[in-house]
Each structure stands twice: as C-alpha cells, then as structure tokens.
C-alpha cells in the first residue's frame, strides 16, 4: 500500500538519493588500506587546485580587467588564477596517469572513468577560452591563431573565438557550469563505487563485492 509520501516526487527523490548514496558512504571516515599511497593524493589535489581557480576567478570577475591588469593586488590574483590552473592540470594529468595504469574503470566504474575523461577535455576548453579573455595583446594574437585553426577543421561557423563577449560568457558561465556538474558527478561516483582496488585485491568478477581490506582512518 502506498502512502502519501510515496506519491510525492520529493520523497521519491530523497529515498532514491539516500539509497544510492547513504550518508556514511557520501562522507566516509575510513578508507581501504591501499589508499594510503601518494598516487591516491592527486585526485583531491586537483579538486583543491580547482577550488583556488574558482575563488580567484570570482575575484577577477568581481573587480574587472582594470584592476587585474593595473594594480599590484589585481596582478597577484591574476597570477594566482593562472598558476592554480597550471597546478590543476599538473595534478590532473598525474591523477589520469595513475588511474589509467590502475585500469580504474574496473568493477562497474566505467562511468567514473568517462566523467573524469570528459571533465579533462572540458577543462582544456575552459582553459583555452581563459587565454582569449585576458583582454591584452596576447589574447588577441591567440584568438587570431585559434580562429585559423578552428576554421581549418570546420568549427568556425559554430562559435567565433574572435567574439570576445561569447568567449567571456563561455569562460565564466557556460564551461564552469558544465565542468562543475561533471566534477560533482565524478566525485559522487567515486563515493558510490569506492576507490578502485589494486589488481591483487580485486574480485574475480565485477559482480562480486571487493574483499574488505584493512582500513585506515581517512
């Protein structure tokens, strides 16, 4: 017999979300012992760098180009935005290498791998549009080169890298929204499926649950 709650979409969504991601799985305080390795650090290092990218980017958007090109504080935050992006890609590539050699798509983790790969590609687009909105001669030169490259592969009619307003909106609204969605989805999938175990600890078939290894506090 269904109750009033069962017929409400909010209750159904809540129940489904709680079943998919119980609170203890969403915010765990224990991790398998094999996670105690430096190679597992680069995913969260990428997230930390992304947080600095977003905060410094918000400050740049708030104050505008006169501030970030013309004042010492602005130039500092401008550089912070650039170098946190460098760090973001640096750690993300090492995270990618580590997960590739672990075959991290094992054990029903294909979507975790795919969302990470698409987020990586989306990050490249976001970074490239960032080069276009520096509002200096460098960005003009990069836009000219990008226009020729994109036209040569037939993408020039779809969007225009010389259109500053379009590239600015791509960089500060569209791409961060898409990237943010992908990153949150990726992290939730990591929480749901767990961190991929080493080959020697993996179950014989994907349907079997992984053996419970020794655990350490995270």
């Amino acid at each position, binding site marked *: 017999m269904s109750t009033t709650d069962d017929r409400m979409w909010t209750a159904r969504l809540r129940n489904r979300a709680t079943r998919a991601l119980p609170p203890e799985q969403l915010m765990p305080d224990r991790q398998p012992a094999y996670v105690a390795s430096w190679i597992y650090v*680069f995913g969260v290092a990428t997230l930390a760098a992304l947080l600095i990218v977003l905060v410094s980017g918000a400050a740049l958007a708030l104050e505008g180009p006169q501030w970030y090109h013309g004042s010492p504080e602005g130039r500092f935050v401008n550089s912070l935005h650039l170098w946190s992006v460098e760090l973001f890609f*640096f750690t993300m590539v090492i995270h990618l290498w580590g997960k590739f050699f672990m075959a991290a798509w094992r054990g029903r983790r294909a979507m975790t791998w795919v969302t990470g790969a698409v987020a990586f590609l989306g990050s490249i687009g976001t970074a490239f549009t960032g080069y276009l909105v520096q509002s200096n001669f460098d960005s003009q030169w990069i836009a000219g080169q990008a226009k020729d490259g994109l036209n040569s592969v037939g993408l020039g009619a779809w969007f225009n890298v010389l259109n500053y307003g379009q590239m600015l909106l791509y960089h500060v609204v569209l791409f961060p929204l898409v990237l943010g969605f992908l990153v949150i989805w990726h992290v939730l999938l990591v929480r749901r499926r767990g961190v991929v175990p080493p080959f020697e600890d993996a179950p014989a078939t994907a349907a079997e649950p992984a053996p419970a290894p020794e655990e*350490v*506090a995270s």
Partner: protein
Amino acid sequence: MDHPGTYLHWGVIQISVANLIVIGLMLLVFVLALVLPFPRGRQRP
C-alpha cells in the same frame, strides 16, 4: 618574460623548453608518488 620562448624541433615534433620541463616534472612526481612511502595514519582500534 616578454620575448618568444625557446623551442626544440625534432622532425614533426616541436615543443617549447618550458612545456618540456613541465612534462618532465610531471613524470618525476608520478614516479616519486609510486615509490615514496606514505605516512601511516592511525589504525582502526
């Protein structure tokens, strides 16, 4: 910094020294992450 970067040419491959250094550093950090011991956290009682 206000001058063109130094590029290396090797057949069809062309890469700036700066990018090559970054790739080298990433490889170095990747290898170090695999071989360096990780500090152990407190064990579950």
